[in-house]
Every structure is written in structure tokens, then in C-alpha cells.
């Protein structure tokens, strides 16, 4: 529509619309941060006060009194980082095989793996919970992470990008006597760094945020709770308006890592969504 210009009034209306929409979209997160800085009295006030008269970090201190927030953040980091690393390794290898090898039933196997991308986790939750329990991994971080290390989206994304890596490059490395594994990680991977970065960001954010599986497998072992699960304990600590500041402080802590990552690296996120084959 760039060929057609809009009038001055139209332009003003559009600017206004963008501002209103951005304010509406940002409002809940802004409210979250503001509430975390209020005193308990301010949080309970009717009608609500928007700006804390005397912003303070007391609620954050209180969070550390109710849950072991440091431990929770560390658990979240362990889950998100190890899941991300595992997904990167398995996806690079499988993506390479699907992009560069010829073997029987290749398309069938690929389709079967990719179809798991669209499977809601609840469909497999009950037997998976039992299987992981029988492996003796209930309540452990390994039990949270292990089932997540193979990822269909990762394989899909890596195959898309590795397909564009020239065969000559790979053949040259083979002539030099490099093993296939070495080729994947030292020849192919460096060529597709932006795609790997995008996958890493998506995997990290997803596994930082994920809730259903850790809740099920950790079975109340609060020592191993990631921060998203510990937020539930903050809520039940003292129900009602009393704990608003406490809960909002905890939520702010949980939100920060993925949000900071996104703000600094959003170009990778958006480019990979545009470039990963989701095309009109």
C-alpha cells in the first residue's frame, strides 16, 4: 500500500492508534513492576493507586524469605541451558542427516518426527510421567530435562538451513579425512550461526517458561522447583490482596531473563520466524 499516500488526518489517526495499542500491550507488565514496588497498604487500596508513593524493594526481600529464589533461578537456568544445549546438538546432527544424506524412508521418518511438533504435551503426559518415575527420575532435574532433549522444531529449522550449505564444502572436508561428526560441528555449524542462535533463544525461552511438565515430574520437591513453579508457592503463601507486592516481585524476577534476552536479540527471533519456511 506504499504507493498510496494517506492524508494528514489519516496519519495522525494511525500514530494515535499505534500509541494506544502499544500502551495497552505494555500495560500489564508495567503494572506488574509498579505493583512490586508498592507497600502492602498501597496494593490493597480501593480504588487502586497506580504509582507507588515511596517505591521500595521490600517485596523482593520478602520473596527471598518465602522461597529460595536464588535456588529457583538456578534451577531454571540449569533446566533451560541444558535443554538448549541438548536440543542444539541433537537438532544439528539430525538436521544434517535429513538435509545431506540419502536413505530409505527418509521423508517418512522426517514427517513422523515433525508431526510431534504439533502434539499437545498433555496427550503423552500420563504415560511419560509413569515412564520417568520408573526410571527413578521423579522429582529430579534430570527427569525434567531428559525428555526434552530431542526437539522436532529444532530438527526442522536445522534441516532448512543446512540444506543451503554447499555440498562442495562438506566434500572438501571429507577429502581431508574429517569424520562426519567433526564436519557437522566444525564445518556446517559455523556457516549457519544465525539459525543456531535463533534456535538457542527459542529453546532457552521455551524451557525457562515451561510449566506443565516440571510441575508433574517434580511432584512437590520444592528444592528443585524452577522459578515459574515457585511463583505458585508465593501465591499460596498468603492469598488475596495481601500478597500482591510479593507475587508481583516474584513474577518480575521470573520474567526478566527471557525479556532481557529478547530485547537484546529480537532481530534473531524475528528473522528466524520469517526465514524458517513459514512463508505466504
Amino acid at each position, binding site marked *: 500500500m506504499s504507493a498510496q499516500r494517506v492524508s494528514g488526518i489519516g496519519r495522525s489517526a494511525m500514530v494515535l492508534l499505534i500509541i494506544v495499542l502499544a500502551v495497552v500491550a505494555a500495560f*500489564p507488565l508495567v503494572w506488574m513492576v509498579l505493583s512490586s514496588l508498592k507497600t502492602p497498604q498501597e496494593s490493597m487500596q480501593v480504588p*487502586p493507586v497506580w504509582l507507588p508513593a515511596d517505591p521500595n524493594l521490600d517485596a523482593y526481600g520478602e520473596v527471598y524469605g518465602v522461597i529460595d529464589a536464588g535456588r529457583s533461578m538456578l534451577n531454571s537456568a540449569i533446566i533451560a541451558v541444558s535443554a538448549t544445549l541438548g536440543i542444539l546438538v541433537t537438532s544439528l546432527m539430525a538436521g544434517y542427516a535429513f538435509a545431506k544424506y540419502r536413505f530409505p524412508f527418509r521423508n517418512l521418518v522426517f514427517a513422523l518426527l515433525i508431526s510431534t511438533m504439533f502434539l499437545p504435551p498433555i496427550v503423552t503426559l500420563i504415560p511419560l510421567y509413569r515412564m520417568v518415575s520408573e526410571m527413578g527420575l521423579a522429582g529430579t532435574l534430570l527427569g525434567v530435562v531428559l525428555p526434552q532433549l530431542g526437539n522436532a522444531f529444532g530438527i526442522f529449522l536445522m534441516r532448512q538451513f543446512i540444506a543451503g550449505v554447499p555440498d562442495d564444502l562438506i566434500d572438501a572436508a571429507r577429502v581431508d579425512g574429517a569424520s562426519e561428526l567433526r564436519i557437522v560441528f566444525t564445518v556446517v555449524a559455523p556457516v549457519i550461526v544465525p539459525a543456531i542462535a535463533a534456535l538457542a533463544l527459542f529453546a532457552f525461552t521455551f524451557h525457562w517458561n515451561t510449566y506443565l511438565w516440571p510441575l508433574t515430574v517434580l511432584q512437590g520437591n520444592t528444592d528443585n522447583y524452577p522459578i515459574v513453579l515457585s511463583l505458585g508457592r508465593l501465591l499460596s503463601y498468603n492469598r488475596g490482596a495481601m500478597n500482591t507486592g510479593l507475587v508481583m516481585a516474584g513474577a518480575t524476577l521470573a520474567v526478566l531473563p527471557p525479556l532481557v534476552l529478547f530485547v537484546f536479540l529480537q532481530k534473531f527471533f524475528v528473522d528466524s520466524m520469517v526465514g524458517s519456511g513459514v*512463508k*505466504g
Partner: protein
Amino acid sequence: MLGPAVLLIGIFILVPMVLTVWLSFHDWSSQTGFNAARFVGLRNYEDLFAPISVGRDFRRAFVNTAIYTGLSVIIMIPLSVLLGLLVHQREVRGGQFLRTVLFATYMVPMIAVALVWSKLYSPTEGPLNQILGWLGLGPQPWLSSPDTALYSLVVLNIWQQIGYFTVLTVAGLTQIPASLYEAARIDGANRIQSFFGVTLPLLRRTLLFSSVVAVINAVQVFEPVVLITQGGPAGSTNVLTYHIRRVGIERAQGGMGSAMAVAMMLALIVAVVAIFAFNRRGEEQ
């Protein structure tokens, strides 16, 4: 090369998928080993349709999930087109900024979103009713009434997910050649005509993909329910993921829960096929 990925996805996704189907024909407590399962044929499925509380609760959860999913998709997809156009346009500044704000909400843990909105919705201390008051509208009960709780969760869902679908729409818009708009302009089409004549038809595949993903995401609604509403008030927000987990794991009725999971999966497949069929019919016209 394929070993690790195939092994992991096979063991932790495909095997449990097959087990879910197998268990759905069995009476089985999820506190016991799989070998303790007792074959009962179709009885679990019969119970889902029977006029007993197991069936009634499941059907309620099914309908709630369907309403939640349908409303989410019907509102979100057109909204993503409107927002996508605003982000994509280059006539006024602020498009990129809007995209950043919208997509940021998508990166945030759903559990934090649920907590924040539960406070926003608070009938007395929450700001939403205060804002309604300024606009001269009456206060709403939001999550505290069976009539409005499910719709309140739809609003929350749309707020969290809209950034993702907006970015998908923008990706689709960038694929449309400028020459087509130029041609439409020469033919005397105004902006609205070129939207319906060029933009919308060429976004068709993007919107098909968006709709399917939106459905699959929406049927997974869980965090706001488990944390805030616990399925209430009066069962009005009892949804499938929450209900299946409660039956299959908390009440340990693994066979029954599996039958519910299979029924959910089948319904999801029907919904996705219906979206594709709807799209194809539109394409033929």
C-alpha cells in the same frame, strides 16, 4: 547422525503416544506399573459419553476448551492482520516499536502473565474495573463469575499470544510483491479494495498456518487455570489439559485420563482438517 534425536523423540514422545492409546482401553492406576493395566475394551470411552459425573465433567471441560479455542482464534487472527498492517506500513513511524512491545509479551512465562492478570482482574483492587468506571461502564466480575471467567481467560490468552501471530502476518506481508499494489492502483482500486483484492488473498496461506498454530496453542491452556481459577467458579474454566491431568495423575485414573487425551487428540485432528477444508473451499471460489 539421526540416532540421538530419533531415540529421544521415539522414547519420550512416540512411545508415550502409543501407550496413551493402549492405556485408553485399560483400567489402570498411574501409581502402578504398565503391566498392572487391565483390559476393559471401550468402557472408558463409553463413560465419557455416559450420563455420569465422569462423562459430564469431561464434556464440560471439552466444551469449555472448544469455546476458549474458537473465540481465541476468531478474535486473534483478524487482529493479527490489523496489527501486522500497522507494523508493516512505512507511512508513519512506530511500527517496529509496536512489534517489539507486542512480541515481548509473547516471551514472558504464561504463569507470570496469569498472576499479573489475576491482579488486574481483581474486582475491587484491580485497575481494570477502575478504568471501566472512568469510561462510564459498570464493574465486571471477571474471573469471579461463571458467566465471565472463561472469556476473561480468552482476553489473557490473546494479550499474550498476539505478538507471535502479528510477526507471522508481517512475514506474510513482506512476501507480497509491491508491483501487485501498483497494478491495483493503476486499475483504480482504493486502499480498501486493494486490501481485499491483493493483501487478503495473498495472506491466505499465512493465515491458514496461523489458525492451525493458534488452535494447537489454545487447546493447551493450563497455567491460568491451575494457578488462579482451579477450574472454577462452578466448573466454568475447567479445561481439558487441567482436567486430564487431574484425572490421570492426581486421581491416578490413568486409563480414563488416557481415553480423555485420545478424545482430545481426535477432536484436534478434526478441527485442523476442518480449517484446511475451509481454506480450500475459499480458494476455489
